[in-house]
């Protein structure tokens, strides 16, 4: 999975059917310290992530389709979690 931050939404009416009625979030991908790494992905939201939140992106098709109960379809990137806390300085927070 990848760390990302929700920075916007993408509105699309003419699109692949698997994307219908799904929210598309514009997400900056982040490095381990939580800083934008210059790239971004448009992801389907399944956890109700809000703008500005740090999230977990799943960027692999088979599992993405599994999450939306589909066998086929051009879906690859899904927001699967909302991050509460990042500790990359070695401290362990349970």
């Amino acid at each position, binding site marked *: 999975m990848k760390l990302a931050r929700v920075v916007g939404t*993408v*509105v699309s009416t003419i*699109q*692949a059917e698997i994307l219908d009625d799904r929210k598309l979030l514009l997400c900056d991908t982040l490095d381990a310290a939580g800083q934008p790494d210059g790239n971004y992905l448009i992801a389907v939201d399944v956890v109700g992530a809000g703008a500005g939140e740090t999230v977990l992106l799943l960027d692999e098709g088979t599992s993405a389709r599994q999450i939306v109960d589909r066998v*086929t379809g051009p879906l690859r990137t899904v927001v699967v979690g909302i991050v509460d806390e990042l500790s990359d300085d070695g401290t362990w927070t349970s």
Partner: protein
Amino acid sequence: MQLGRVLGTVVASVKADGLDGVRLLIVQPLDRHQQPRGRPVIAADGVAMAGPDELVHYVSAREAAQALEETFVPVDHAVVGIVDAVEELSQ
């Protein structure tokens, strides 16, 4: 998925099996501020409605082929939607 701008179409009469009838588009990848970034790619038109200069979103790798009728085809980019709006959070 990422944002792209349709620059044009590619006509190829000799193509791999499964690609006949599939529209091929020249797509300029865009960064999240919709500025061109990187080299144009050739993407299959998964919505069969993308016109020139249209803002689209496209998927890459294995999922691109999943956007077509025939899913076992050699396609690595596919347009999967026409973008009506990109609402960026004002930070």
